[in-house]
């Protein structure tokens, strides 16, 4: 068997580096779209193979996803879609930003929960909560100022903590050479067990409660304002759009962002070029991890301040992992992340309705995983795309033309 080196030849021919990145490549936008499309088709096959009606299932999935206006419950579904998407976009941005600097921050999960627990703490901690409670009472009709300030403090503290948590992995990478993927995975589990098996089982629970009750509830002033009554839609979606703009601005309009991208482009080949240009690579990587972690933590604070109002005992992992998928589907561009986040949010919202058709709501994980898998296969996707395009060209143009063009 001769293992041909066609992939590397192919990559070279199309000016794509080892990671498959080439910003000017028009195929970039098609890869995520085709991946998601293929994933949806595979999902249909899974449903059909289990003897159920895929069309009915997808009608339920998309009908109740909040994407299509109309129907009695649309407002509620639309609100749920935006609430879920806000958290996913936050973790997606976190992973995407790190990708831009050539780092695989697989630890958005842990940073998300660190942000959540710290936001919870500043939400209920008596010195803070009492101050803002008194302020709220004193201000009367201007009480929203107290709400704004308390919410901001919780979110900012959460983001600082999440950023610091990610920066630990950055520090270990820069100073000690610990692979960032491994470092962040370990920190994920450390954060998860510290929070769910210790903090929420004792130090942060009301003494009178049983250990299954979760943490204290945050004060009313810390809760995010609702913006579309009677649904529970809150300001998180607006905040995450601001964060998206800030991320885009950081990446494409600042020196720091330029240097981060320079590091990212050369991450595979030792980052010598940015070093030669006088960029302090270690410092930028630390900063990048901090920014990345704080974005994931932003999502964690949405989870607490906008949805549960306490750290629940029933919290399950998955926001950070979903964020990886979203960053990949969104091709690590801030706008792409928003679109991918809305799509996954819609899937998750609609998946609850699929239970009517006897399909568990974790079905959306299958679609997500498949989409990520096809993106991992992007070299193959690109290869066959180019083949199809070339076949079309040879069909429409006589071969002589093509030779002349070459």
């Amino acid at each position: 068997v001769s293992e041909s080196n066609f992939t590397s030849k192919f990559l070279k021919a199309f000016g794509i580096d080892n990671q498959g990145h080439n910003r000017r490549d028009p195929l970039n936008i098609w890869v995520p779209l085709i991946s998601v499309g293929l994933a949806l088709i595979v999902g249909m096959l899974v449903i059909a193979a289990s003897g159920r009606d895929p069309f009915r299932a997808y009608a339920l999935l998309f009908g109740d996803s909040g994407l299509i206006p109309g129907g009695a419950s649309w407002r509620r579904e639309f609100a749920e879609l935006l609430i879920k998407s806000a958290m996913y976009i936050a973790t997606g941005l976190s992973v995407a930003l790190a990708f831009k600097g050539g780092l695989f921050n697989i630890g958005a999960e842990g940073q998300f929960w660190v942000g959540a627990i710290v936001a919870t703490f500043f939400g209920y901690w008596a010195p803070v909560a009492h101050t803002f409670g008194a302020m709220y009472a004193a201000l009367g009709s201007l009480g929203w100022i107290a709400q704004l300030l308390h919410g901001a403090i919780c979110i900012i503290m959460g983001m600082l903590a999440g950023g610091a948590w990610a920066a630990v992995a950055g520090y270990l990478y820069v100073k000690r050479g610990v692979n960032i993927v491994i470092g962040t995975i370990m920190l994920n589990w450390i954060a998860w067990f510290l929070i769910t098996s210790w903090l929420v089982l004792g130090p942060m629970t009301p003494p009178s409660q049983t250990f299954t009750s979760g943490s204290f509830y945050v004060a009313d002033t810390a809760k995010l304002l609702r913006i579309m009554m009677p649904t529970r839609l809150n300001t998180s979606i607006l905040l995450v759009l601001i964060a998206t703009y800030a991320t885009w601005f950081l990446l494409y309009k600042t020196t720091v962002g330029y240097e981060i991208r320079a590091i990212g482009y050369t991450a595979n080949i030792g980052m010598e070029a940015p070093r030669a240009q006088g960029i302090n690579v270690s410092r930028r990587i630390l900063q990048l991890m901090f920014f990345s972690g704080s974005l994931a933590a932003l999502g964690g604070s949405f989870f607490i301040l906008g949805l549960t109002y306490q750290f629940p005992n029933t919290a399950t992992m998955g926001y950070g992992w979903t964020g990886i998928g979203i960053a990949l589907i969104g091709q690590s561009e801030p706008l792409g992340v928003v679109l991918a986040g809305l799509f996954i949010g819609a899937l998750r919202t609609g998946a609850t309705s699929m239970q009517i058709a006897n399909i568990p709501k974790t079905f959306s994980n299958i679609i997500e995983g498949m989409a990520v898998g096809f993106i991992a296969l992007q070299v193959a996707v690109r290869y066959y795309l180019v083949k199809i395009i070339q076949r079309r060209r040879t069909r429409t143009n006589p071969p002589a033309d093509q030779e002349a063009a070459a």
Partner: protein
Amino acid sequence: MNIAQINLTIAQMLDYTTPILFAALCGVLSESAGVVNIGLDGIMRFGAFFGLLGAFFSHSPWIGLLLGIAVGCLVGALHAFITIRWNGDQTVAGTAVNVIAVGLMTYLLEFIFSTTGYSPQIQNYFGAQAYRVQLPFLATIPLLGAFSNLSFMIWFGFICTVLMHVLLYHTVLGLRIRTCGENPKAATTLGINVFRVRWFAVIAGAALAGIGGTALSISSFSGFSDSMPNGVGFIGLAAMIFGKWTPFGALGAALLFGTGQIVQSIIAVTGIAPKLAPGLTLILPYVLTLAVLAGFVGKSIAPAADGQPYYKEQR
């Protein structure tokens, strides 16, 4: 604490160790050849479910084990197809396997058993008395007595560790595998087919992760639960690193981390430090692994070409 209790605790510790050990061995084999398999947690989930499925319908854990191996190989082949055939990003491919495993196994659990959360319990599993390896002559000896009545899977784990050591360090194939992980270009120069060696290592490793999954569902427990493997794959990944990418190192680390998992029950039995928070014992594997990687306690270094796709004729 009397001898019987100590023996029971050791046996319990070994029960926790085995799935971690198989996951770590998967990592050792795959990464020795230079392919990072972060999806081993997902492969374990596949193995755990299909292992139970086989054992449930055939009333024999052996069929379950075979099915677990088969599904492990299949998912491993998928990982190899993406990362070796098409040079896809290994971490991304592994993440995909993990996410798919979460969704697909829950789907199949509800589809096949019409239950949520837990599969039905089975009688014929490796932990059942009939399937235990009986070594009566050990029973009266202190400490060794713990080994007198163990599940087959625990012994299988030890055997696989030794076999893997022999394979990696005492055979030509093992040398080739390690060459592919350290310097694939040199391997090619020597006429080794890097792609074929990596395919083998990834699939064989994934089979081990599949076995690790069955060790959870039809050995340590007698059923599949939706939370499986509950991060055991990642503890395995940590054990692989803590064990410095060697089979016996992985065994030692798995034993240490397995003990960490039951420290809580040891504390409960002995009454030492009842106030110690469970979270603090559960983070032990991960903290130790970071410490070793960072060189605070010894130093653990990955194979040089670990995680890098291989392009022929690339300078």
